[in-house]
């Protein structure tokens, strides 16, 4: 009897619930597609960009029916990156070495990629979008402890790499896996300290609230972006984030000259592609976190909910839809710029030695992060606290 009443109540509010669900599903699909698409873009930028830096030509072979050549267009390597190489990778033999732990060997790449992808669920891509009577928060999952969620998923990311190295039954892979997990655990501490300092500054763990707090201006013209409040945290997060994504100058887990390819030595085809995608998704994740914490997230300078209000006093009012689109585009432009910055750093610096890596992490970044946190706490309390 009671159950039937419950069902009827559910049916009464059915259409509202269904639309909420549909909106949630659309947001989830949009963010996953964006992340995967941008991962491919990063891959292309890495190949062509590195070629540019090193005065090479880079990927330029694949062409569909010679169409590009017939039209007289230069080959930018887009077909290589988007079509030819993925097809080649996923149709290659999926090789599992003799004596490997078959189950974990197969599971590891996905155990590495999954935590990175789900972290994007709490990323605010814009403020509120109004469609009809619905107000859509452009954050896929509105979690009020989002900063903790980010730390938790990054913490789980270690397993895929460590187990991939162990399950391959290969000494180099194992050494790579051990190096990777030691490095990731060490730099997670600096990363956590940087994020906690930001949390103390804004007095919230909610990423959407942090973005909102970065709206407005100082002295009439300067955007209230977090980098001006927490420059030390920005450096800490950038460095420890690059160490988390295991790329040069922190790419000791793969160290080609010592370990063949490190933890993915024994991976081929699709599984290796998944490991590679994890790296680029992590680059993107670091860029997203830095954008949200330090570059105002979706904030556009001088853009408010009802349009632009320029320093001089001039105003340009815009409808809600235009504001939402501007915020969305601004957010991803910032993310792409920061991802490209990471790729530039990767092709500029040489690899660290392992003792240098550990010294930088434990004796450099961790004490700096602690000092920054204590200083932040003092300032926040002195300024009245929240």
């Amino acid at each position, binding site marked *: 009897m009671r159950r039937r009443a419950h069902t009827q109540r559910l049916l009464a509010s059915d259409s509202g619930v269904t639309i909420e669900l549909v909106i949630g599903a659309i947001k989830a699909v949009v963010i996953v597609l964006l992340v995967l698409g941008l991962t491919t873009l990063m891959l292309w930028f890495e190949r062509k960009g590195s070629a540019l830096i090193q005065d090479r030509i880079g990927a330029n072979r694949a062409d569909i029916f010679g169409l590009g050549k017939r039209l007289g267009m230069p080959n930018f390597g887009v077909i290589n990156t988007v079509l030819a190489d993925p097809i080649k990778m996923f149709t290659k033999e999926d090789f599992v*070495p003799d004596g490997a732990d078959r189950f974990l060997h197969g599971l590891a790449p996905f155990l590495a990629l999954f935590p990175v992808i789900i972290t994007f669920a709490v990323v605010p891509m814009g403020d509120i979008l109004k469609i009809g009577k619905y107000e859509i928060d452009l954050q896929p999952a509105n979690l009020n402890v989002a900063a903790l969620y980010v730390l938790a998923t990054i*913490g789980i990311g270690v397993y895929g790499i460590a187990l991939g190295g*162990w399950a391959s*039954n290969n000494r180099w892979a194992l050494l790579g896996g051990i190096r990777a997990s030691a490095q990731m655990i060490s730099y*997670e501490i600096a990363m956590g300290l940087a994020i906690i300092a930001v949390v103390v500054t804004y007095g919230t763990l909610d990423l959407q609230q942090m973005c909102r707090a970065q709206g407005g201006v100082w002295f009439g013209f300067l955007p209230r972006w977090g980098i001006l409040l927490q420059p030390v945290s920005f450096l800490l997060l950038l460095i420890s984030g690059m160490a988390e994504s295991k790329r040069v100058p922190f790419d000791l887990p793969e160290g080609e000259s010592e370990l063949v390819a490190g933890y993915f030595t024994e991976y081929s085809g699709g599984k290796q592609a998944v490991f590679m995608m994890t790296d680029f998704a992590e680059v993107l994740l670091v860029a997203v976190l830095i954008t949200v914490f330090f570059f105002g997230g979706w904030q556009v300078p001088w853009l408010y909910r009802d349009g632009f209000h320029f320093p001089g006093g001039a105003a340009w009012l815009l409808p809600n839809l235009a504001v939402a689109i501007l915020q969305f585009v601004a957010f991803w432009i910032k993310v792409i710029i920061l991802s490209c910055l990471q790729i530039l750093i990767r092709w500029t610096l040489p690899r660290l030695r392992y003792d240098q890596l550990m010294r930088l992490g434990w004796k450099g970044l961790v004490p700096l992060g602690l000092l920054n946190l204590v200083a932040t706490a003092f300032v926040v309390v002195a300024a009245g606290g929240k």
Partner: protein
Amino acid sequence: MPQWLFAFLAALAIIGALGTILQRNLVHCVLGFALVLIDLGVLYMGLGAVTVGFLQIIVYVGAIMVLFLFVIWLLNIQADTGVRGGASLSLKLVGALAAAALAAELFVVFSHAPKLREVRTIAPAFGSVATLAHVLFSRYLIAFETTSLLLLAAIVGAVALARRLAGQSAEVAAMPSQPGSAARESRREVA
């Protein structure tokens, strides 16, 4: 939390716990344990303690279980070395005593717990960071600070021990065992 979700998570936790104690390969055991800990974190969140749930995953799954993996690899513990049915009598006795003590404790706790029908609804702020921090820094302040002092002492002790060991001659550590280590060793002997 809907009842089917609780049932699913509970079943998953039991499977993980069984995996922890029944598998022969220690790395698989650690993974079973990690599954249990993630599952507990999700259960906390479902019951309203969201902050504690995430902290559980960050601390236990993100840090402590990785250290377990490290210890297994660095101590080079071989798989399949478990004693097969031949545990000593004293081990069995101690195990039985510990299990009985745990069962008695669970019985006492559950017999004092409020009946399911009498459980009050929880306050909306329950489990939030602010509530948790308020409780930690007022009611349990002394316990909290004592624990942090204890942890600090443990860290200093660990550093002191590691430093003394580093002064002595370092032995070259053997490579940790991997899934196919045993077969590889035997092949080497044949060759």
